[in-house]
C-alpha cells in the first residue's frame, strides 16, 4: 500500500479517485473525507465526473450464436488431419518394409481379420493424434515413429543399423 494518509492530512485527488473507484486505499481516507469540507467538496465533484463518464457503460451483450460461429471456425478440419494420418500410416508401413522386407510376410501370416483390425486401430489413433498437432510436431511425431521402428527391429537383431 503506497497511501499513507493520516486522518489530519488531506489525501491527493488521485487517492480520492481511487477511493471512489473502490480500489484499496488507507482506511483513514474515508474518515477524512467526512470531516474535511475541502476534501469532501473535491470528493463530491469527482463523483459527479465519474457518474458522467459512466454514461459509457452499456448493457449490450454478444449477439446470439456468437460461440457457435466461433466453434465452427475453431473446429479441427478433418480433411488435413485424415490426410496427414494416412501419410504417416503409409510412411510407417513403407519404412517397416524397407528396414525389414520380412515384415510383409508377417502381415500375411496374421490373417485378414487381424490385419484389418490392426490397421483400423493404428489409423484411428494416428488420426486422433494428428488432430491435436501442428505441422512441426507432426514431423517430429513421424520421425519418432520411424526411430521407434528401427529401435524395435534392432532389438530383435533383425536389422543392422
Amino acid at each position: 500500500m503506497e497511501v499513507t494518509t493520516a486522518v489530519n492530512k488531506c489525501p491527493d485527488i488521485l487517492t480520492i479517485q481511487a477511493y471512489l473507484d473502490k480500489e484499496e486505499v488507507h482506511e483513514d481516507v474515508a474518515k477524512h473525507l467526512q470531516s474535511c469540507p475541502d476534501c469532501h467538496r473535491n470528493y463530491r465533484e469527482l463523483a459527479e465526473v465519474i457518474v458522467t463518464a459512466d454514461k459509457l457503460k452499456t448493457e449490450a451483450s454478444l449477439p446470439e450464436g456468437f460461440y457457435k460461429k466461433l466453434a465452427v471456425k475453431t473446429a479441427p478440419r478433418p480433411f488435413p488431419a485424415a490426410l496427414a494420418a494416412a501419410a504417416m500410416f503409409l510412411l510407417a508401413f513403407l519404412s517397416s518394409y524397407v528396414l525389414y522386407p520380412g515384415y510383409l510376410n508377417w502381415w500375411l501370416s496374421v490373417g485378414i481379420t487381424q490385419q484389418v483390425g490392426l490397421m483400423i486401430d493404428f489409423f484411428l489413433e494416428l488420426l486422433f493424434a494428428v488432430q491435436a498437432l501442428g505441422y512441426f510436431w507432426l514431423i517430429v511425431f513421424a520421425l519418432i515413429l520411424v526411430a521407434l521402428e528401427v529401435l524395435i527391429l534392432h532389438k530383435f537383431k533383425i536389422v543392422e543399423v
Partner: protein
Amino acid sequence: MVVQLLQELLQEMVETYGDRVYRLALRYTGNRTQAEDIAQETFLKAYKNLDRYDRSRPAGPWLFKIATNICRNWLRDNREVLCSGIEDYNRTPNPGPEELYLAREGEEKLLHAIHNLPVKYREVILLKHVSELSYNQIAEILDLELSLVKNRLYRGRLMLRDLLTKRNGGYYSGE
C-alpha cells in the same frame, strides 16, 4: 492439449468475458457488426495462442490485451470512416419516435466524445468504464505504471466531462 479441452476452455472464456470484450469493441467502434468482428478476432487469436496462456492466472487481462491491440489496429485502418455512421445500439424495448431520437442523439454524442479523447486517455477510460477493470488490471493490459493509469484516468475523466458538456467546443487535440 486435446482439441476438445481447448474448445471447452474457449467456451468458458467466451461465457465469462465475451460480453465485456464486445462492449469494449462496441464503444471503440460504435458499430455492432464491427464490434462482433473484433470480439471474434479476439477469441480466435486467444484460441490460437492458448498454449502460451498461463492457466493459473485469470484470462481477463490477457484477453483484454489482445482485444485492445485489435482495436488499435482497427483504429489505424478506419481513421477516416470514423463518426461517418453510427447505429442506435442501445436498443430500448419498444422505443417511441421521441425516445429513439433521444437515444440516438445520446449515443452519437458519446461516440463523438470518445473519439475526440486522445487515444492514451481513451483506452484507460474505456477499460475502466466499459470493461469495468481494476487499476492493476488496466496497468497490466496497457503495460503502464500504476501511477500513470491513475493519472490518465483522472485527466481522461475530466476531458470526457468537458467533451460531453461541450465546455471547450467538444474537441481535444493532441495532449
